[in-house]
Structures are given as structure tokens and as C-alpha cells.
């Protein structure tokens, strides 16, 4: 055994590894950007209506509510949890909004009702998962039935269609109106409220996840929950909080969706949970936990939204679109693994 010299700077350790082109190119976000650009180029060639600001703005209506929930889902999957009850929460909250609207609530009140119901549902999920220690996948399959079941019991086959006009205005018109500046290619685009909310939340979530101590703790929990607990991180409390956030955003999405549709039935938002999980996984968040970025989710949302929009412009039915989306999902995850198997990639 050799004697150790005093432990002062025996090794040179860089602050950061030098960036290599290949590492940058193989980043998930870069792959998504390429996919996104490809989507835009192909669609522009195929359809003359694609690159139209008003068409594009309208296209955002179709995915913004889901995308808002996807932000919360991304954090949950990052910490190895999942919430399959989000769409059912949307239904329950939308029903509450419907009754509140009949009772004469204004737009602010209706949003508050939606968000409040969402938070309660999230607290219920979070309690069962963290304090009762149950697996989230089963719990939220159960609460998914429960929440939507309650909606069905109360609502039956009725629809709620009476909403104050100011509320509908929020959901159906552009929140920011188109403004020309006189210079071509320089204008303020029309933006619907739901997309604006999504953009703002994306920035907030991105900052929280990537720049704050809380975000770092979430990565630690997702990477190794036991070591995170040993490091003094309140794993249960943060997980609980994420379920509450998931409920909250589902309630917010319910308000936006109701305002846009102007009516709700008990089957509102049915099947959304799988679309949302697809957005998150395509966004590069690992189902095994600890890996993911909000930028990735944002790019995946845009890609999926534009693929869907472009195909609908060409009158391709929704379920055929889902074939491409399903294949895309599997392909982007399978291809790196196949490359690893064949030994094409040397770095891990």
C-alpha cells in the first residue's frame, strides 16, 4: 500500500466537461427540435393553409389545456409517480363550474371553483399515495373511476350549457389580439388565453425545475428516492405537493376547456390522461424517474400539436394521427436503445 500525500489538488478537475458536438447533437431536446422543424417544413409543403397565423393560433386551442396538465404530469413522472386521474378531475371540476355558472358565478368565481375542486382531488390522490403509501398507478386508476363516476352520478346524461358570456369570451376569443406593425414578418400574433397560460406556466415550471432548490430536490427524488431521503429531502411532502399541483392544473384546464366549449357532459376530456402521458414521455421524461426537462416537454407538445393540426388540414382522421404519434413515441425511445445494442454509440 502506498502512502498518501496530503490531500491538496492532486488531480486537475475541470469545472465543466468540454462540450463535444456529438453530445450536444444527441441531446433529446435537439432531436425534438429537428422533429419540430421537420413537421413544420413538411406541413408547409403539403398545405398552403398551414403557415397562417390565425390557423396556427386556432390550432393551439386543441392542445393547450392538455399541455398545461402535462407540465404537472412531467414533474410527477420525474419523481417516479403518475396521475392517471387528471382527465377525470377535469370532468369533475368542469361539472362544478357548470353548477356554479348556473348559480350565477362570474368568470373569476368559475375559475376559482374549477381550481378548488382540482386541488381537493389532488389532495385526495396525494394523501393515498404518500401517507397511505400506495402505488400511484393503481390509486389514480381508482380515483379516475371515482371522480368520473361521481360526475356521472350527479350529471347523468345532462349537459351543462349555461355560462356567463364574459366567461365564454375568455375561452373562445384571442386573449391577445393580432397587431400589425406595418413591417412584414414583424407583428404581434393572436394568442388564445389557454396558450398564453401554457406559455407562462412553461416558463414558471422551467425555472422552478431547473433553477431552484426545489427542482434539484425533485431530480434527486426521481433518481434515487432512498438516497434523497437520507439527504434530508422531504420526499413524501414534495410528492404530495406534486399531486396537488396536478389537481390544480387539471382544475384550471377544466375552466379553460369549459369556457372554450361552452358546454360540458360527463364524458368531457375522456382519454386525455394517455395523451398527456404521451406528451411527457415524448418530451424525454423517463418513466424510470430522474431524467427530463421542461423544454423537452414544451417541444414535444408543439410537435404533437402541429402534427395533429397538419394532418387535420389534410382531412386525416384523428385516430390515424394517433398511429403516427404512437409510432413516434415508440421509435424515439427504441432507436437509441437499438443503437446501443448494436454498439453504434460508444458513450453512455
Amino acid at each position, binding site marked *: 500500500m502506498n502512502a498518501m500525500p496530503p*490531500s491538496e489538488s492532486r488531480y486537475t*478537475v475541470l469545472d*465543466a466537461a468540454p462540450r463535444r458536438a456529438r453530445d450536444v447533437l444527441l441531446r433529446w431536446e435537439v432531436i425534438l427540435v429537428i422533429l419540430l422543424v421537420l413537421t413544420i417544413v413538411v406541413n408547409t409543403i403539403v398545405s398552403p393553409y398551414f403557415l397562417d397565423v390565425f390557423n396556427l393560433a386556432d390550432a393551439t386551442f386543441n392542445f393547450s389545456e392538455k399541455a398545461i396538465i402535462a407540465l404537472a404530469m412531467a414533474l410527477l413522472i420525474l419523481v417516479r409517480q403518475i396521475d392517471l386521474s387528471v382527465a377525470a378531475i377535469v370532468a369533475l371540476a368542469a361539472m362544478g363550474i357548470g353548477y356554479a355558472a348556473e348559480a350565477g358565478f362570474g368568470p373569476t368565481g368559475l375559475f376559482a371553483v374549477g381550481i378548488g375542486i382540482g386541488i381537493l382531488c389532488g389532495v385526495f390522490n396525494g394523501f393515498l399515495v404518500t401517507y397511505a403509501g400506495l402505488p400511484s398507478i393503481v390509486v389514480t386508476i381508482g380515483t379516475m373511476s371515482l371522480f368520473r363516476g361521481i360526475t356521472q352520478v350527479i350529471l347523468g346524461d345532462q349537459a351543462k350549457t349555461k355560462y356567463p358570456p364574459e366567461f365564454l369570451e375568455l375561452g373562445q376569443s384571442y386573449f391577445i389580439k393580432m397587431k400589425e406593425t406595418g413591417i412584414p414578418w414583424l407583428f404581434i400574433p393572436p394568442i388564445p388565453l389557454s396558450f398564453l397560460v401554457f406559455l407562462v406556466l412553461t416558463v414558471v415550471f422551467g425555472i422552478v425545475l431547473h433553477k431552484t432548490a426545489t427542482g*434539484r430536490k425533485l431530480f434527486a427524488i426521481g*433518481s*434515487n428516492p432512498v438516497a434523497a431521503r437520507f439527504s434530508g429531502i422531504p420526499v413524501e411532502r414534495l410528492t404530495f405537493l406534486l399531486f396537488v399541483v396536478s389537481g390544480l392544473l387539471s382544475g384550471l384546464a377544466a375552466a379553460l376547456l369549459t369556457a372554450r366549449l361552452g358546454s360540458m357532459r360527463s364524458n368531457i376530456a375522456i382519454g386525455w390522461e394517455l395523451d398527456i402521458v404521451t406528451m411527457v414521455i415524448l418530451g424525454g421524461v423517463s418513466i424510470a424517474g430522474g431524467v427530463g426537462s421542461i423544454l423537452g416537454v414544451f417541444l414535444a407538445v408543439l410537435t404533437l400539436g402541429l402534427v395533429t393540426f397538419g394532418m387535420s388540414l389534410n382531412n386525416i382522421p384523428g385516430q390515424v394521427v394517433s398511429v403516427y404519434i404512437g409510432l413516434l413515441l415508440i421509435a424515439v425511445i427504441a432507436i437509441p436503445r437499438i443503437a446501443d445494442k448494436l454498439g453504434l454509440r460508444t458513450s453512455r
Partner: protein
Amino acid sequence: MSQPILTLSGVSKSFPGVRALSDISLSLRAGRVTALIGENGAGKSTIVKVLTGIYRPDAGEIRVGGDQKHFSSPRDAWAAGIAAIHQETVMFDELSVAENIFTGHMPTGSSRFVDWSEMRNKSTALLKRIDAPIPPEFKLKRLSVAQKHLVEIARALSHEARVVIMDEPTAALSANEIDDLFRIVEQLKAEGRAIVFISHKFDEIFRIADDFVCLRDGEKVGEGPISSVTEAQLVRMMVGRPVDQVFPKRDVPIGDVVLSVKGLSNATEYADVSFDLRKGEILGLYGLVGAGRTEAMQGLFGITPVTRGTISLDGKQLSINSPSDAIAAGISYVPEDRQDQGAILSLGIRENVTLANLSKYVRGLFLSRSAEQEATRSLGRRLAVKAASWEQRLGELSGGNQQKVVIAKWLATRPKVIVLDEPTKGIDVGSKAAVHDFIGELAQDGLAVVLISSELPEVMGLADRVIVMKEGRMVDEFKRGAWSAEQIVGAATGAAKEAA
């Protein structure tokens, strides 16, 4: 002497950064019990895994009954008549006793369907042979630890194994259960099987073994009939070197009491753990694997609930309900299981180092990267972490460097008390020395250190005082200069205290 049933010659096995076995030769004879002796990490479990087809050796050959064998899966080893009772019980809790005995080689009739009555009958017969009347249809999870061991022995017998390997079979057994086990071992001997017996307890080794093979750092350092050595000789062989040379003890003045633990207990794992720890002192906590040392210290750190007892730091009584309470009070715990509990392998060095006190690096609302880098640099250099960059993922570092980063994480919290649980387990010799040196430096800097270690030279080399635990309780205490290896091992194993 009879022909050997099994011989290993020149077997070597390396893992990244560690040479686990080098040039090991040994032979096992029918009707004899060979004790495999060595400290943790000496290579005993690696030999077991080579013999049972879980690891493939890098070099050397295995001969069974004179024929050379290559094991590429556990099935091959069974076929050659080798079966093991593994240290970590690898069994199926939710399946029946009979299935646990026969999974992987269930009897099937001519119809290719599993023959349950045959399986049940065979299980009953096997269990009867070892005098263990366990109903074969019981689910394994209903059995006690001792009964599970018996099922494992029945599993080994079901392979008609000529070589039965027992890897610390007595670690979790009571005295009566050990007597039962030894009767079975005698019976297996009488049936002409060769038995490999791995244990840390010398009284057992002298009671049951015929031969011994002693390992140290992956090399064979001694072998022969057990009757040719004394316990003291074996300990010396295992430990190998005059301990004081390897672990230069720093001369540190010992100050006032920092941590005072009184009557720490929980329901099933430890009872009445009490000690005072002083500034600059290194307290060794020695005992066998499973003696309750880790459990007690995890209670102190707030990971598992404590049912009784008080913890005071600097005279103030603490209420610790979670690790964050302990960290805030100034207590750190470097866990034993580096991969699962200590390191976050998929995060970088910087992110690991700052994890336990992230709030310290927050400027305004956000984490300050430069503050994190500064702390990582200074601690990383102090511990001589070897890496390409401070952003490198921990999973890419060697075990020793991972451990240094984990220790750095805990030092970053500026603790008054640091508990190190097996800090050098499974790391290479060079890093080991660096960690040892550093533990001395910590004490010099005024920290109070608790060192849990199953390696005697480590404890004797570094500690000012050693508390020995056995079966969840403190059984003895020794002061530096007034101890011997034999005394400490004796206290831990319950063997008679002989004069060194």
C-alpha cells in the same frame, strides 16, 4: 486423505477498479467442512459466486471430480453438484416452501406438467432428512429466518449437491438454532459431502470446521487443518499486518462532550444504546453484520422512528423526526449502502455534494451555480476526488471516488457529529487509505466521529474507544491501548474472552 471433489486453481476475478480475487487455489474434500475466513471484502462472496456460476472467472480453472468445468449459469453449477445457501436470502416470499426448493428444476411427469404431489413428497422427505418438519405448502413469508435457512439447505440437497456452500448461515440465528444447523452440517459431512462454511464467528469455526482457507484482499494467505492453528493466529492471518503502521492515528486532543445518547431503543432492532461522544473523538462501533449498529445509528439520524431514549447535542435535548432535523442539528450520517442510500449515480458531482444543504446555495430565489461550484471545488480537492470535471456523473467514477463525494456531501452540511457506516466497504485499497487519513483529519478539525466498521484493523487503527454491539445491545467497551483484537472479536461473537 480422500480425493478432492472440487479444486480451484489459479482463479482470478477483477471488477472495474477492484481486483476481487487473484490466483486462488483451493480444494474441497468429501466429508470435510472447509471454513472460508476473511474480512469483509476479502473475496469470500466472490468465490461463492464463481463456484455457483453467477460470475465467470477471468482466469484459472474449476475442476469437479477431476473434470474441468465452465459454469455459464447457475444451472451448470447445479448440474455439477454445487449448491449454495446465499448470504442475502435469494428466495421467493410469496411462493410455497416446496416451490422455493424446486424453482428452476421442478419435477414434471411424462405430461410435462409440474408434478405437485411428487414435489411435495420430495420436499417433505428433504426437510425430514434435515429434521425440519416444515409443511411444504406453507408460503415462505410465514417462516422465521432460521426456517428459511433450512429451506435453503433443503434446496441445496434437492440438487443432490456434493458441494454445499453456506455463506454466513448463522448470521441471524439464535444459539439453539445454530445447534440445530450444526447437527445438519455434521449429517451432511457423514453423507460424504464437501461443505464450505463461511462465518465471522470463531467459536463456530473451531466447532464445525475441519480445514480452513484464509483470504485477505482477494489473495489466499493461509490454509490447513483447523486443529493446526489458534484463534489468535487466525485473527492475525486475517488482519495480516501490524495495524498501527497502516492506520497512523493522529494525536488529537479530546474535548467536551458533544453528543449524548441515552437509552436509544426501538421495538425489534436495538435496545438501550447509550454513549457520550466528545469533540475530536473517534468512537468505533464494532460488531457482526446484523448486530443492530446501522439500525441504531439510522434511528439517531431520524430515518427510522425511535421508541425510547434521548439524544442531546451540546447539552440541548433534540427532537429528531427526520433526517432534515438531524442535519439541521449538526448530525450527519454517511450510509453503508453507497449505491442505494448514499450516492445519486445519475447526478453530477456538484449536484451530489450540495444536495444535503441546498438552501445554503440559494441566492434570491435561485440556486447559484457559482456558489455550488465553489463548495464542490474546495471539498472535492480536500478529499482528493479524481474526476474529469465536477459535472461528471457519479456513476462514471470508481467506488472510492463515489464514496469521497458522498462524504463531501455530508461535510458540506458542516456537521458537529458525523456517523460513518462502513465507509471503506467495497472500495479499492488506495481510496481506502485516503478515506482513513481523512477520518483522522476530521477528528483533528474538531468533529466528533462515530465509525461503524466490521473491519477490525480499521476500528483499532482509528478509534479512540470501541463499543461492541451484539444482538441489538451494547455488550462491551474498550479504550485505546487497553484492548486486543481477540478481546474485541470475542465480545462481538460471544466467544470466551481469552487473553491475547
